[in-house]
């Protein structure tokens, strides 16, 4: 039976609905200690003195560590070697770790952390992107040069639109906060269990600070309660902390961050600023873009260089554009380091280019959709980096699908009519409806800058009863990896799905397979599994081809019946048995195996008897990519996923409130291995995108004044740069009451190199939602926002400005008219 393309229920969901799935906070080990962290209250300062004497006297305290106690390197190894685990001499952002405590209980650890006093000398802090740029605090600068944009912009026969856009911090807001447990092993090694996305990053961080060899630092991912990029590199810090404490005390140590701590100190989506100039011809051809793109990296580089790199590679959107100049900068400031977040440097710049597309279309006098269609990338076109698209370009089909499903042309007329009617109602109805488009594409995988991180490995081991263990180095973080990889393994081996078990990721089982990011998991781990399965299958074929299995099967069946009569029950973990309502005790007797399953079991039995090696390591290396650092040109990714969104909103022009009514969202994913998990990714991403566009932002204290204190209703006063909204009642994400009707549409333009034609899907859903929302608000009300989130306050301000602009304009216009007469 082929499972690829089927709506297979997720095997991991059974534990989740029963409450038996074990997340890191659900684990405990004998004699386990608890950690607490002393963190900097200042954005920038010099540490003068750390006094730990009082804390050491607290009952139950076992270890207090500062930078000088680190046996290895005080360094979290990432792209640039700049981030210490514990501040040494200088603190560079609020919440930076200064000291670690391990104690018998969590409350003793926290009490001790409070009892540690640190004397600081405050230093001037850079808190804005602009200030950082002025001081040349540049973490990374990338360039993109194509064609001759200057020539285009100096022409008189083109339409030019220029704007500056601002995008906010976005919090991952995974419902499970970060957490780690380190367990010392008898041979001197350390095993770290935790909530994470990238076991190999965590392994490197642990090895770096403990000074141990990498093979002594074993990292096992526990069931992870959401990642979205937030558990990519950042978990290396808490992991390194518990590892150090475990090393110092010889006991297991657990550290679970509180929600507030997680929001204050863990990574976020970079705030962005985009100065964007575009030119198009009067007949609607996008000719040139000229862009300065800034991201606020925070105090340390972490992943900022590559986040920025993805942004620049998609700077003009999924459109043909031959003349391009982009300069992209990641700026160092004294704020929390930002990192990976679903979309990875794209949502910021996509917000800008999709607003620009609407404004250009309006100036040219084209419908926003028509203008996009006219410039849409197709097979044979070149991307902004001059990557020739030879295959699997489904962008136009995503537009067509959305247009069809939404009945766009009729809907547009209907909305215009209804808005007209609302204005003339008595009293006038303050609600205006509007439609907005947002499109994007996404280079799948790490691309040319990914280097050695690109390949992925897998190990496949078949047991004598036919069950299969599959180990990969990428992780399940809710996105459905277990399901999708199970399907790929089952189909590649030709065995029923219920025989497959995807093992919890463990660095000791598979070679470094790079990170679980960039929508690369299905593609890379899927190909690695397929590679391993191919090796095993060919060995199996040698003894099984043309063999008649009916005798073995009959024998096995009668053995099963006999065993059942003796009262031997079938193992409990059978997923399908429990969820399938047709299951009855009577078909349990025969193990309720299908004929297909019996054949598989028989095949394996024969292979075992013939001493066939039923295991293999698979390895996947992506096709060649290229990149030229000077021009920024090259075939930078292996392929691209495409997406189109249309949203319908209703804006209350008196209060500025926006209600999202409907979203149509189409994605070219190559091949949907499992349409159900695919839709789940789309729906989840769209709702995060709605949060990004309408609700979510961090508010930082600008000065230590009372006003800032009053804002939160918590103690204070807070030093400049401190995040004021660090809990779910002040950092606002969408609830079940806030979501629209979502129509997910899947388009399949197979990618030949992908497993069964699949590309990646994880990220496109979030990327182009915010601009679609703001475009729809513009369509409904005429206001042109350049900043998100489009909160009621911002919309209302803009409406007010627009109204006063109009009243100022109209007398002038009438005066002009008068003089003309």
């Amino acid at each position: 039976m082929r499972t690829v393309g089927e709506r297979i229920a997720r095997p991991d969901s059974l534990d989740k609905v029963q409450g038996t799935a074990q997340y890191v906070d659900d684990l405990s080990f004998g004699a386990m200690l608890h950690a607490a962290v002393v963190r900097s209250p200042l954005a920038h300062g010099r540490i003068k003195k750390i006094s730990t004497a009082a804390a050491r006297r607290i009952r139950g305290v076992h270890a207090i560590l500062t930078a000088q106690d680190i046996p290895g390197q005080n360094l979290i190894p990432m792209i640039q070697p700049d981030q210490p685990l514990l501040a040494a001499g200088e603190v560079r952002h609020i919440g930076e770790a200064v000291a670690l405590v391990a104690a018998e209980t969590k409350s003793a650890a926290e009490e001790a952390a409070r009892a540690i006093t640190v004397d600081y000398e405050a230093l001037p802090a850079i808190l804005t992107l602009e200030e950082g740029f002025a001081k040349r605090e540049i973490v990374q600068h990338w360039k993109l040069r194509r064609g001759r944009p200057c020539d285009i912009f100096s022409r008189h026969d083109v339409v030019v639109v220029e704007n500056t856009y601002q995008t906010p911090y976005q919090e991952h807001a995974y419902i499970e906060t970060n957490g780690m447990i380190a367990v010392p092993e008898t041979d001197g090694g350390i095993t770290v269990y935790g909530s994470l996305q990238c076991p190999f990053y965590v392994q490197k961080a642990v090895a770096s600070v403990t000074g141990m060899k990498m093979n002594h630092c074993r990292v096992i991912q526990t069931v992870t309660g959401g990642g979205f990029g937030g558990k990519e590199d950042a978990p290396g810090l808490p992991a390194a902390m518990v590892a150090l404490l475990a090393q110092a005390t010889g006991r297991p140590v657990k550290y679970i961050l509180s929600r507030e701590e997680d929001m204050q100190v863990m990574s976020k989506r970079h705030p962005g600023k985009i100065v964007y100039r575009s030119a198009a011809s009067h007949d609607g051809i996008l000719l040139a873009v000229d862009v300065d793109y800034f991201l606020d990296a925070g105090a340390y580089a972490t992943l900022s260089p590559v986040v920025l790199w993805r942004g620049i590679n998609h700077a003009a959107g999924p459109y043909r554009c031959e003349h391009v100049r982009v300069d992209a900068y990641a700026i160092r400031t004294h704020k929390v380091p930002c990192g990976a977040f679903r979309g990875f440097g794209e949502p910021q710049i996509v917000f800008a280019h999709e607003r620009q597309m609407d404004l250009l279309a309006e100036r040219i006098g084209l419908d926003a959709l028509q203008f996009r269609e006219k410039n849409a990338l197709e097979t044979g076109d070149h991307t902004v980096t001059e990557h020739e698209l030879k295959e699997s370009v489904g962008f136009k089909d995503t537009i067509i699908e959305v247009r069809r499903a939404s009945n766009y042309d009729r809907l547009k007329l209907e909305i215009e009519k209804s808005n007209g009617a609302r204005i003339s109602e008595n009293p006038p109805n303050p609600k205006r409806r509007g439609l907005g488009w947002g499109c994007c594409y996404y280079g799948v995988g790490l691309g040319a800058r990914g280097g050695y991180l690109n390949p992925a490995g897998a190990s496949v081991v078949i047991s004598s009863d036919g069950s299969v263990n599959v180990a990969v180095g990428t992780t399940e973080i809710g996105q459905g990896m277990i399901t999708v990889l199970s399907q790929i393994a089952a189909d590649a081996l030709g065995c029923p799905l219920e025989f497959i078990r995807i093992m919890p990721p463990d660095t000791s089982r598979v070679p470094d397979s790079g990170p679980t990011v960039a929508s690369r998991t299905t593609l890379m781990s899927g190909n690695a599994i397929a590679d391993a399965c191919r090796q095993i299958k060919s060995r199996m074929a040698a003894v099984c081809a043309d063999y008649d299995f009916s005798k073995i099967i009959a024998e096995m069946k009668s053995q099963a019946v006999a065993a059942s009569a003796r009262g031997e029950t079938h193992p409990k973990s059978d997923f399908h048995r429990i969820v399938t309502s047709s299951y009855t005790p009577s078909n349990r007797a025969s193990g309720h195996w299908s004929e297909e399953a019996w054949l598989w079991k028989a095949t394996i039995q024969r292979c075992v008897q013939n001493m066939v090696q039923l295991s293999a390591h698979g390895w996947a290396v992506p096709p060649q990519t290229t990149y030229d650092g000077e021009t920024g040109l090259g075939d930078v990714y292996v392929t691209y996923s495409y997406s189109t969104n249309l949203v319908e909103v209703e804006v209350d022009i008196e209060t500025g409130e926006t209600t999202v009514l409907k979203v149509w969202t189409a994605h070219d994913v190559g091949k949907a291995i499992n349409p159900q998990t695919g839709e789940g990714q789309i729906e989840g991403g769209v709702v995060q995108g709605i949060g990004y566009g309408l609700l979510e932002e961090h508010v930082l204290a600008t000065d230590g004044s009372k006003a800032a204190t009053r804002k939160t209703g918590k103690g204070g006063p807070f030093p400049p740069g401190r995040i004021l909204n660090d809990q779910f009642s002040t950092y606002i994400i969408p609830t079940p009451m806030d979501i629209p009707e979502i129509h997910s549409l899947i388009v399949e333009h197979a990618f030949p190199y992908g497993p069964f034609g699949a590309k990646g899907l994880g990220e496109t859903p979030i990327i182009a939602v915010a601009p679609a929302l703001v475009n729809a608000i513009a369509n409904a009300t005429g206001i042109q926002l350049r900043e998100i989130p489009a909160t009621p306050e911002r919309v209302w301000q803009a409406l007010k400005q627009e109204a006063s602009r109009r009243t100022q304009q109209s007398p002038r216009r009438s005066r002009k008219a008068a003089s003309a007469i």
Partner: protein
Amino acid sequence: MTRSSALSTTVRIQCHVNGEARQLEFSPSVRLLDVLREELHLIGTKEGCGKGECGACTVIMDGRAVDSCLVMGYQADGSEIWTIEGLPQMWEMQTARKLHPVSRDDHEPLPLHPLQRTFVECGSSQCGICIPGMIMSSVAFLKENPNPTREEIRYGLGGNLCRCTGYVKIFDAVEKAASEMRAFAQNPSQHAPAHQRRVNKATPRRRDGFVASTLKEALKILAIPDSPTRPQLAGGTDSLVRAKDGIGQPSRMVDISRIKELSGIKKIRARGKRTSGSAYPQEIRIGAGTTFTEVLESELLQKYAPALIEACAVIGGPQIRNRGTLGGNFANASPAADSVTALMSMGAILEIASLKSCRQVPAEKFFLGPGKTVLKKNELLVAVRIPKIPNLVGCYLRLGQRRAQAISKVDVAVSAVLKPRGNGSSKNGGSLFDFLGICYGSVAPTIFRARATEAVLKEQSPNPATLKHAKETIKKEVQPIDDIRSTAEYRREMSAVLLERALRRIGALA
């Protein structure tokens, strides 16, 4: 429950968890969430925030969904609690396929609860951390509303956040399970009488220590000048959130939520002359311990307190409404206390008691500033009284940051009795007011009654000119600030917008 020693290092309770009687002993500073996870190893109940904001810790306590992070362990004494682990058992009992609890050595696992199964079938879980809470909330509201619309499902899950799924497939699963469960309930042959049978509650015993069972007991504790414990815990939806921020120690609080005298909603004969409007012969007395959910379920209040019903309907999410009380909403004295705005608009009177005396204070006079009230250390709020006015109309409107689990940025309650304009013609628009109360929340240091605006509207019927005047007046009457939720300017302008909308809603404008 007993405090087991003078130092009260541990507390002992009895309760039923997932159908099994339990005797538990633990520290008075632990929450129900910790008791479930650490004492009983029921790890399916998750912690996402510890402040009632995410719903990951939702369990069913005495038939209602609650956030177990906002319930102290000692408050569970005598309760019946269900967690995600108990759902197959709960379903088994409801469907009465077996009348006795399954014996432990039966290896056959019970079938999943329909909600658990449909969550698997519909692909509703991704990372899964929110899922136990989602399912527990669904179980609770399907019990009240077995045939919900999509909109009702959204409302029923308003207290649960999920960051992965976008909720769509969660709604699908709830819809699907609901229809299966209805089909089951409609089939009487499978519907054994045991369906309604609940597990026996732990025998009520005299409780002392952490739970006050009578008003007198609570007031006695309050009367001790330096008592180590204080009656401070009603629903806990404010005080335990503060405790998480390090303000106040739950191990020194006393639960007042079980006090009989603080519950109940009933009609009474009016006492004394009312301070506002004409005197009404009848009043409604609402115990200070009444939860928002109880308000919403009261037919009396549905009929006579429209503004209060609308206000309570938008507070928090279901778990918060199931625990939070009117008394706590007043005593906490937040400028964004939604039920207070509504009650004050009806001219509510508060009954306050100490061991020695009782007094009555109009709601309007109760607040001294943010977080400050006229309550003395030895006093408790006992009840809220509102006039029972036959033809009262009212409404409550608010702007929040989102549609559930939101704190108001500005809110207004209007309660009124409309008198048709003289000679029966309504051509000039509007009506005159026989009684009018307009209150605002979140736009001043305390919730307040907009007397100046009321005066503008009361003296003349609201025609376009008066309406304009009233809107100008309210903009002067409010004293909003910039804070993390909104700006002063926006709040000021919205006060006027909401005023017009509220008047229109109650039919006071043509």
